[in-house]
């Protein structure tokens, strides 16, 4: 028998997870769309955001500082990674790009493990957002509720940057045809660096704001990477609206399946991805013709 209170609560959990996945996937999808590189270190960058934020928190006891530090640190890592390594792989085969980003992800994970150990760390929610909030029909953790709002604001900000600014216009054009953007006099390599920075920022931000919900550990990014990857396949590679839709779908599938049997949550996620690939190979909101 389904316990309805439990069901609604899981529905909410799915929405929170979905919004979070949408944000991380947006970063991954704009990077892949523009640069053509699937960043397999994206999950590790989510993890780095959590650790950088946690470190900042232990020194300052300020959640806001932790969020800013975690996000900016990962953005910086992203820019250095793109300038220092990834750009030498743009004209290399996809296998090489996958290997180098996968390898970088391992380096990030093991570096963190070396310095901070394998035990998980926790960042408490900011004061005022602790405890639970009555929603009338159920009680729900206050910070999770706030997290939904925080992530939605971040997604809105990303949307505004992509769709209402000139930089966003260049990025959207680059996702479609970066070579043509170059032929219009715009230095695409600067655009690539910027996009990698924004994508990394999204992962890092998600990593630290999620830290009060799920404690951080060096390998916390692995499951996130797998989930994020299915999100962009479901939503359509290179599509920001697709990442949002795919995120919510994936979040709900994971959350609702966990209610019955957590072991099957990824299985169901892959079933959904397979169905999308069979019925709409370009993803729900993707466009045909991408590589």
């Amino acid at each position: 028998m389904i316990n309805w209170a439990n069901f609604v609560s899981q529905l909410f959990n799915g929405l929170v997870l979905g919004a979070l996945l949408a944000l991380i996937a947006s970063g991954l999808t704009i990077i892949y769309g523009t640069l053509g590189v699937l960043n397999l270190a994206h999950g590790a960058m989510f993890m780095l955001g959590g650790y950088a934020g946690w470190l900042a928190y232990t020194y300052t006891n300020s959640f806001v500082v932790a969020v800013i530090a975690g996000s900016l640190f990962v953005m910086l890592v992203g820019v250095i990674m793109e300038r220092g390594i990834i750009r030498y792989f743009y004209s290399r085969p996809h296998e090489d790009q996958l290997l180098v980003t996968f390898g970088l992800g391992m380096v990030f994970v093991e570096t963190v493990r070396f310095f901070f150990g394998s035990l998980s760390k926790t960042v408490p929610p900011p004061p005022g957002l602790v405890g639970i909030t009555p929603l009338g029909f159920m009680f729900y953790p206050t910070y999770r509720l706030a997290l939904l709002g925080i992530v939605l604001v971040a997604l809105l900000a990303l949307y505004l940057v992509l769709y209402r600014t000139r930089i966003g216009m260049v990025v959207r054009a680059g996702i479609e045809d970066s070579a043509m953007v170059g032929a219009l006099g715009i230095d695409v390599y600067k655009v690539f660096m910027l996009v990698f920075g924004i994508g990394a920022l999204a992962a890092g931000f998600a990593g630290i704001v999620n830290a009060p919900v799920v404690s951080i550990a060096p390998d916390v990014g692995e499951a996130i990477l797998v989930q994020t990857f299915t999100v962009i396949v479901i939503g359509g590679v290179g599509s920001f609206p697709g990442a949002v839709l795919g995120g919510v779908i994936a979040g709900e599938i994971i959350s609702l399946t966990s209610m019955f049997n957590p072991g099957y949550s990824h299985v169901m996620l892959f079933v959904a991805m397979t169905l999308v690939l069979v019925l709409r190979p370009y993803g729900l909101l993707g466009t045909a013709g991408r590589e």
Partner: protein
Amino acid sequence: MSSPLLEVDHINSYYGDSHILFDVSLEVNKNEVVALLGRNGAGKTTTLNTLIGFVRPRSGRVVFDGTLTHNLQPHAIAQLGLQLVPEGRRIFGNLSVEENLVLAGLTAKNRWPLERAWEIFPRLRERRRSPGTDLSGGEQQMLAIARALVRQPKVLLLDEPFEGLAPIIVRDLLATCRALAEGGQTILIVEQNTTAAMTLADRAYILNNGHIVDALSAQSLRAHPELLHTHLGV
């Protein structure tokens, strides 16, 4: 005699290991319209892609307006004033008509106000808010040309601008191109539609299997149309 605006000097270009262009040399002078004719697969598009920097030639040189450009990135070449209207148009479907033009003008030293583009292509003004994907083939081609023109290029490279368009649209675009040429716009055009191209061009080069096999003036082509038959089999 001043030096040509665009000088291509014995370039050899490859796609991977395939040798596509063999010692191709050509010149385009200021205010001139030059056609590059040849069969499918002759290397016409590769020539334009080499000029704009999409393909880097293994040997030879390209001099554009006094600058060696064959080792430059596409954006640097575009900033010097060489602008490609690519085969297949390649307009940005997720951007509106207006955004396509604004994007093109971002790095141009002297860009047209949008009004100027709307004057030439009134149809685009009507569709300024439409995403590129919603445009018809003719409208896409107008946008592709307008997108190049807003940058006020010194040389306009047109790659098969009439391909796949209805005759009436070809006629209109041809009239627009002729007006541009009469206004002094330098153009290098690649076209399968030889008749259309030769109503525009002052001169033509014939490309065959990656080799320039002939260079002809428009007058001699009109006087001896059989020359084209010999080279192109059309």
